[in-house]
């Protein structure tokens, strides 16, 4: 699925759709929604952790996009702009619902016993070998337990493939802050996955990976 999320959008086609949307072409906007709703849903869900809220936030985001698309100058990629709108709405929604892990503060770490108590929540223990699905579920659980600001930075960078500049635009923070949030977010993830890494249960997956920068 990561590959699907990273799929490139044809920029020419996208530019045409955006141009038509600026002229209030509903058919073009329909196509634009179709193109981005899956990716955008995943982003919204990662913040609000609730299907209904994610869909509501997504709808509001697309409506805002349509209403304000005249102000989109194309200085950034369209989905960066979309994500910025979506991010703000999702954070607002999560705050309204008093989600326990909504703070954008970098230091709002959860209690260590909670972050490390993955097995107690129905996740496979390190003694079992993890298949792809189990590892994915484990990863999602770990991600849901790190602070929102760090989680969002990690997802935008590692899953969506956004640059630091783009993440900074979406989250409205400095690029240096993006770097530190990624660092501490990955550090927390690593701490939670450490038992599985030590047991060598993730090593095979690791060796299969490709496309890394460094």
């Amino acid at each position: 699925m990561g590959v699907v999320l990273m799929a490139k959008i044809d920029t020419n086609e996208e530019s045409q759709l955006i141009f038509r949307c600026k002229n209030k072409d509903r058919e073009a906007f329909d196509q634009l929604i179709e193109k981005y709703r899956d990716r955008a849903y995943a982003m919204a869900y990662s913040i609000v952790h609730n299907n209904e809220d994610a869909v509501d936030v997504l709808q509001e985001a697309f409506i805002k996009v349509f209403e304000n698309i005249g102000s989109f100058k194309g200085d950034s990629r369209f989905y960066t702009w979309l994500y910025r709108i979506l991010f703000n709405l999702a954070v607002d929604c999560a705050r309204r619902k008093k989600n326990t892990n909504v703070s954008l503060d970098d230091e709002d770490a959860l209690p260590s016993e909670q972050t490390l108590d993955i097995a107690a929540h129905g996740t496979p223990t390190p003694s079992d070998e993890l298949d792809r699905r189990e590892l994915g579920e484990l990863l999602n659980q770990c991600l849901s337990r790190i602070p929102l600001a760090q989680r969002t930075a990690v997802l935008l960078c590692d899953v969506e493939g956004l640059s630091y500049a783009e993440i900074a635009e979406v989250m409205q923070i400095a690029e240096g802050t993006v770097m530190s949030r990624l660092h501490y977010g990955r550090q927390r993830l690593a701490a939670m996955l450490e038992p599985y890494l030590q047991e060598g249960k993730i090593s095979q997956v690791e060796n299969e990976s490709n496309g890394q920068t460094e």
Partner: protein
Amino acid sequence: MSCEDNKIKITALIDGELDAGEQNRLRRHLEKCPACAAEKLAQSRLRKIVRKNFIPPEPPPDKWNGFNQAILNRVAPTPLARVSQLRVRWATPLALAASLAIVFGVLYFALFRVEPQIPVDGNQSLAVVSTEQASQLPVKVAVSTPHPSVSRFCEVLSTNYLKPGYETRDFPTENGKMVIIMNKAEEKKNLENKN
């Protein structure tokens, strides 16, 4: 730069976000610092794990049913609704524009349209005067009108369009009636001059 600072920079290094100078400096440090080298390895490994294994949450299968349409209904009403909105939105301006057009049309014909004299048949209520004729009369503007009732026309003109100090007066001519708009002060002055 401390190792803690370098560890944060390692994040940018593995993401390809460091410039060449910073990369070289950090690589030199990594060659000498096992702790930072281990950190780089751990971060790289974790980055790969996330990239490869993250499973994006998927909405329930029927979640997209009607999703786009619900948005489209909110951002752009249906054609019927649009016509209705258009009617409401433009009703007042259109009525205003139409009223203004009528007013200016009447004013134009009433105040400014001075045409050369032409034969007038018996059905016309008013005569048409030439600019030359108008200038010889103690009037501001002479007008012609197809209005069936000269007195009613003069009344409407006086009530609605004339500035204070002006009045209408109609005269019989050989071709019918002529309405003139008179400036009372000028008329008085002209009469005094004549006397």
